[in-house]
């Protein structure tokens, strides 16, 4: 989904739970949205251990430039000394509970320095989370720059 960041700023982060969800569904959605924020924090702090726990081993990540990454590739990029994320914000998040799967859509904004160059990106993302072995794990994540 996103890239990296040093400080997490959560602006206008709102979650609309789909109608007619049970209490258990609401709990699951709340937990997944908390994991989305934990993801931001982990990227900002280059905490690959935390990311390792959030990502399913078979996760498919499609980055903002359309590049396809495995879990190992994503974590390696996080560790890169050329990447210096500064701010990452997630907003307008909406979660849909589908059985043992939650689909989260939202908008991210991020700023940082990569390979010595400053960048600012804004994009839309969809993350899919699956409940596996008692944990919610992200199984797919895709980002697209907002160009319009």
């Amino acid at each position, binding site marked *: 989904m996103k890239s990296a960041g040093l400080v997490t700023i959560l602006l206008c982060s709102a979650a609309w739970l*789909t109608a007619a969800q049970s209490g258990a569904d609401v709990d699951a959605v709340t937990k997944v949205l908390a994991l989305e924020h934990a993801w931001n924090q982990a990227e900002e702090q280059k905490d690959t251990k935390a990311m390792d726990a959030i990502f399913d081993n*078979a996760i*498919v990540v*499609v*980055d*903002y*430039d*359309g*590049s*396809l990454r495995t879990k190992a590739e994503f974590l390696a990029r996080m560790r890169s000394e050329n990447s210096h994320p500064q701010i990452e914000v997630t907003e307008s998040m*909406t979660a*849909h509970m*589908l*059985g*043992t*799967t939650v*689909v989260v*859509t939202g908008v991210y904004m991020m700023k940082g320095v990569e390979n010595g160059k400053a960048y600012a990106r804004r*994009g*839309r*993302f*969809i993350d*899919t989370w*699956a409940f*596996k072995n008692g944990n919610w794990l992200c*199984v*797919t994540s*895709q*980002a*697209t*720059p*907002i*160009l*319009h």
Partner: protein
Amino acid sequence: MWKLFPILLLLLGTPRLPAQSAVQPAEEQARILGLENAWDRAVKEKDVAALKMLLAPELVYVDYDGKLLDKVQYLASVQSPTVLPQRIVSESMNVHLYGAVAVVSGVYRETGEKNGKPYMLRERFTDTWVLRSESWMCVASHSTSISP
């Protein structure tokens, strides 16, 4: 009506995945890939009736430019008389099953004419399908441009 027949076959042939262990994941994956191909054909032929069967009412569609569309908006975009797709191909598709939810990732190519000018799209996509009333329906679709 006859144009819808292949899609009806794919939809009606869907068994109860969670309850029937006899269903092989490979069969289900093949069925979902068939629906992906049916989707491509429906877009090329501007077959809105077919698309209505494939897409869930709550569809979340993120286009390659980051635009967020609901089902009604997406169907309107397909019907646009200024866009004339000539060739649509989805390739390198992988299906991951999570119970009654399936995630398909792949690469989408489309060529055609828009406002009288030729265009070419190449996108990485992720589609999320949910098994509902014994039919698979797409609830989320996300595209990101990649270089041609």
